[in-house]
């Protein structure tokens, strides 16, 4: 009996270790990873089924603002063109909006400030796990889309940032039109009542309040309407998505 018990315990321990080693090995197996990635579509569909399309993210008061709002990722793009724009206080900066639209257009900061603005105090949830509360002001993305008029073929809104570093990496992000037209999806030029600081994405950043922080591209330079994400960079719809993170960042 004792032998059998010891054998069983050893067997279970070995099985456990093999199981864990197996899980680690599977993380490097393309087919296994594709299987794991199926959960993303399940989460996206379930969340969209369960929650109303236009459910609004919680909004807070000035008393709830984070004393220090962490600046994550790039905090000052190395791109020389960006540095020149920053030196001139972004007076020469303009946001190009094009792709599958009827009327491609570029917007200066003054143009954007003339559009009706929305101010919202919201909680920023980083994929790492931390949360911070900030106040953001800027036009709704839907207002800008109404100006340029997306073609019926357009399915995604793609955001291109100033290049973050000399490595040639390009930060970009994308949303589908449902999330892009959500009332709280704004192009923020102000944070906590002041012009958006450089560490937080000056002169303009995206706010998508029902998804994680990495969706909210900073240092916006260009927005394009596209019918597919495949031809862009790694083809998965964003800088972090190309490195294995979920395109649907609602969870």
């Amino acid at each position, binding site marked *: 009996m004792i032998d059998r018990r010891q054998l*069983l315990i050893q067997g279970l321990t070995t099985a456990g270790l093999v*199981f864990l080693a197996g*899980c680690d090995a599977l*993380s490097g197996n393309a087919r296994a990873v594709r299987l794991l990635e199926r959960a993303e579509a399940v989460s996206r569909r379930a969340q969209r089924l369960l929650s109303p399309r236009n459910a609004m993210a919680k909004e807070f008061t000035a008393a709830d603002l984070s004393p220090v709002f962490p600046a994550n990722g790039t905090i000052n793009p190395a791109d020389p063109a960006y540095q020149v724009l920053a030196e001139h206080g972004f007076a020469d900066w303009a946001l190009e909006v094009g792709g599958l639209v009827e009327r491609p257009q570029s917007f200066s900061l003054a143009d954007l400030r003339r559009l009706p603005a929305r101010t919202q105090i919201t*909680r920023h949830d980083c994929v790492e796990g931390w*949360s911070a509360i900030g106040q953001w002001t800027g036009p709704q993305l839907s207002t800008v889309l109404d100006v340029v008029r997306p073609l019926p073929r357009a399915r995604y809104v793609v955001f291109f940032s100033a290049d973050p570093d000399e490595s040639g990496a390009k930060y970009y992000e994308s949303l589908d039109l449902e999330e892009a037209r959500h009332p709280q999806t704004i192009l923020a030029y102000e944070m906590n009542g002041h012009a958006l600081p450089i560490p937080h994405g000056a002169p303009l950043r995206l706010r998508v309040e029902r998804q994680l922080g990495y969706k909210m591209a900073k240092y916006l330079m260009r927005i394009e309407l596209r019918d597919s994400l495949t031809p862009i960079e790694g083809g998965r719809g964003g800088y972090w998505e190309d490195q294995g993170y979920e395109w649907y960042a*609602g969870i």
Partner: protein
Amino acid sequence: MPDAKPAPDRLYRHTLPVRLAHWINVVCLPILVMSGLQIFNAHPALYWGERSDPDRALLSIDAVGSDDNEPIGLTTVFGRTFDTTGLLGVSTDAEGRVRSRGFPSWATLPGPQWLAMGRRWHFFAAWIFVLNGVLFAIYSLAGRHLWRDLLPSWRELRGLGGSIVDHLRFRHGDDVARYNGLQKIAYLGVIFGLGPLIVWTGLAMSPRMDAAFPWLSDVWGGRQSARTVHFMACVLFIGYVAVHVIMVAATGLWNNLRSMLSGWYRLPPPKSGGTL
């Protein structure tokens, strides 16, 4: 003398749905715990409320010094700091290299720091865990499992104090055909308490769920509170599994395992000489 039916020497103790649900959990739980620790390691600190103000952490795990210069791991709980080098903050990875990370590589899935892959494992296993739990709950409620096997009787509830003492002394009654009172409460608590709690607090961290159902996190006082409760529920799960495995081993490991595999539990021989 008419043929008396011989006393059965085995008992069909676990139905197939119970056994299936059990082993699916056995696979899911380690994946969930270890990928959860991988995710935790991306920001190894816990808070209360909506925000994560660094100066108001309830718990934080830090490393002081660089990886090539004998760093030390410090864990701060409610303002008290402990040197946890080797386990928390600073530990050695599978290749024997010193790493600054919250939980050590042997406790996380994947082993190395890899948040994106940790999330993939976590949500995949979470869906299986949730579906398994929902199907099991329906089976227990609709079938007889809940009413016959899990709900304690008044007699068992009154005898709970004695049952606790017996458990602490590893003295278990002869009535192995059914769960005892304490056992029933532990199973009920995990199935209908801890399980839903960990799923709830997990969902409360999802920005989309939080937008649609703000009460998910409001009940706890905010998203960071929900994250803390999620972590504590995980600790309780680990504690439950530890006690469960010890009890299984202490009350006849092989017999218990066999009954959870095949359903059949071998009964001990009758105590008295019988009725001849």
